[in-house]
C-alpha cells in the first residue's frame, strides 16, 4: 500500500541520494581542476587581507607560563637531516656552521652560532600550531630577526625574507626545505632566530642549530635547520615559485589560519 504521501517521501529520499552521489564525484573532479583551485584560492588572499586588517602590526601572540609547556613537544617534518653537509656540521657540534645573510642587503653577513648567542636575545613561551590540527607549547630563545636585518641594512626593494634550510624533506633535486615571510612578520618582535628550546640548546629534531619562530602563523612557516637567509623582492624564481616547500605542494603562503 502506497499513498501519495509515501510516493512523495520516496521521491524526496531518492533525490537526496542522487544529489549526494553527484556531489561526491563532482567535488573530486573540481578538486583536480587547476582553474577551480584558483577560484578557491581567492579565499587565501581574503584570509590574509582580513587578518592583516584586524591584526595590529606589533600585536603579540599569546605567551604562556612555564607550567603550561608541553611535556613532550612533538617534532614534525625532518627529524635529523641526512645531507652530507649537515651531517659534517652536526658531527662538529656546529662549530663550523655559519649563518649567511645575503640578497637585497647593504652588508651581507656571516655569523657563527657563538656570535648569534652574544647578541641581545628574546625568550618567549608560545603555542606552536600545526596545520594538521595539533598544538604544543614550548619556550624559545633567540635573536630577533629584525635586529639581524637592521644590521645587514635592507635595500629599498627588499620585500621577503627567504630561509634556506639543510633538510631535504622532499628528497631529490627539489626537496630542500625553504620558507619565506614578508617584512610585516620578519620585523615583528616575536619573530626570532631560535637557538635554544626550553632552556637547552635547540635539539636536532627541532632544527639545530637555528630555526625561525613566526608566532602568528602555522608551524610549516617556521623553518628549521636554517643555513642562509636571503632577502628578495620576489620568490617567483625560488623553488617552484610559491614561496615555500609546502606552498609548492598546495598549501597557502599566508598561514595565519
Amino acid at each position, binding site marked *: 500500500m502506497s499513498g501519495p*504521501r509515501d510516493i*512523495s*517521501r520516496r*521521491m*524526496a*529520499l531518492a533525490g537526496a541520494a542522487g544529489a549526494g552521489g553527484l*556531489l*561526491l564525484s563532482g*567535488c*573530486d573532479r573540481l*578538486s*583536480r581542476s587547476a582553474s577551480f*583551485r584558483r*577560484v*578557491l*584560492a*581567492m*579565499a*587565501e588572499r*581574503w*584570509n590574509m587581507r582580513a*587578518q592583516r586588517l*584586524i*591584526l*595590529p602590526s606589533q*600585536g*603579540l*601572540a*599569546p605567551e*604562556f607560563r612555564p607550567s*603550561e609547556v*608541553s*611535556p*613532550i*613537544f*612533538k617534532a614534525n617534518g625532518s627529524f635529523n637531516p641526512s645531507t652530507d653537509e649537515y651531517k659534517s656540521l652536526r658531527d662538529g657540534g656546529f662549530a663550523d656552521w655559519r649563518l649567511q645573510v645575503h640578497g637585497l642587503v647593504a652588508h651581507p653577513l656571516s655569523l657563527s652560532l657563538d656570535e648569534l648567542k652574544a647578541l641581545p636575545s628574546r625568550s618567549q613561551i608560545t*603555542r606552536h*600550531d*600545526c*596545520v*594538521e*590540527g*595539533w*598544538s*604544543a*607549547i614550548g619556550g624559545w630563545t633567540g635573536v630577533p630577526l629584525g635586529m639581524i636585518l637592521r644590521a645587514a641594512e635592507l635595500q629599498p626593494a627588499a620585500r621577503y625574507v627567504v630561509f634556506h634550510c639543510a633538510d631535504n624533506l622532499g628528497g631529490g633535486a627539489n626537496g630542500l626545505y625553504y620558507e619565506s615571510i614578508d617584512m610585516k612578520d620578519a620585523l615583528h618582535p616575536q619573530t626570532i632566530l631560535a637557538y635554544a628550546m626550553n632552556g637547552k640548546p635547540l635539539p636536532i629534531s627541532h632544527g639545530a642549530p637555528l630555526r625561525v619562530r613566526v*608566532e*602568528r*602563523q*602555522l608551524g610549516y612557516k617556521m623553518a628549521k635547520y636554517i643555513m642562509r637567509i636571503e632577502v628578495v623582492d620576489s620568490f617567483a624564481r625560488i623553488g617552484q615559485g610559491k614561496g615555500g616547500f*609546502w606552498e609548492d*605542494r*598546495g*598549501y*597557502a603562503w599566508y598561514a*595565519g*589560519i
Partner: protein
Amino acid sequence: MTAEVASGTAPAGREVIKRHALITRVTHWINLICLTVLLMSGLQIFNAHPHLYWGLKGANFDPALLSLQKFPKWATIPSWQDLSTGRLWHFFFAWLFVANGLVYLIHGVFSGHFRRDLKPTRDQLAGFRQTVLHHLRLKFPKGEEAKRYNVLQKLAYIVVLVLLVLMLLTGLTMSPAMDTAAPWLLTVFGGRQSARTLHFIFAFSIVGFVIIHLIAVLGAGPINEIRSMITGRYVVKPDPGDKP
C-alpha cells in the same frame, strides 16, 4: 514567513499561503551548499589528526579526550586524503557561509522576520508540553496553527542559529593570527584545542539538527515543504476541528 493568502485558487478547503520570503529561500539553499562542503572538507581536515583534546595544547604525546578512526572517503572532500585541498574548499566556503549568513541575519532583523516568526509567543510557551507530546506522535498542526512555526520549531531554529555563530567563532579561535588580534576568543573557549573539540561537537550538533529537520519535512509532507522553500507557496490543510 508571511501568512498572506496568495492569489490563485486552491482545491476546496485548502488554502495556499506565501510562506517564506525570497531572501529566506535563497539564503537557505546557499547555506545548505556551504554547510555540506564545510562539513565534508572539515572531516578531511580532521583526518589529518583524528584526535581531540581539551585545553590550551594537545598533540600525539598528550592525553586525548577522544581518538577516532579517519572518516571514510565518501564523507570527505576531496575523497582521497589531501589536507591542503580540504583547506582550500573549507576557507572558500567559510567566506561564502559568512556572507550568506550576514545577508540572512540583517534581513531577519530589519524585516521583522525574527521578531514575527522566530520569537515564541506567550501562548506557545504555555502550551510547550502539549506541543512536545504532539511531535512525539508525529502529529503536525493543521489549519490556522500551521501558518506559524510551532514552539519547538522556533526553539530549534534559534538553537541552530546560535550553533552556526559558534561554529564561526570556534573556527576562528584555531587561527594563531586571530588569537593575537582577539585573545578573548581563547578565554571564551578555553584554549585552541578546546575550541577545536567544540568546533567538532557543534558541527555534529548541526548534523543532528539537519537529521531531525529532514524527518520533520518528510513527516509534514515533503513536496509541500520543499516547494514552500523554493517558490514560497505553502498549502495549509484545513483543520478537521475547525468549522468554516
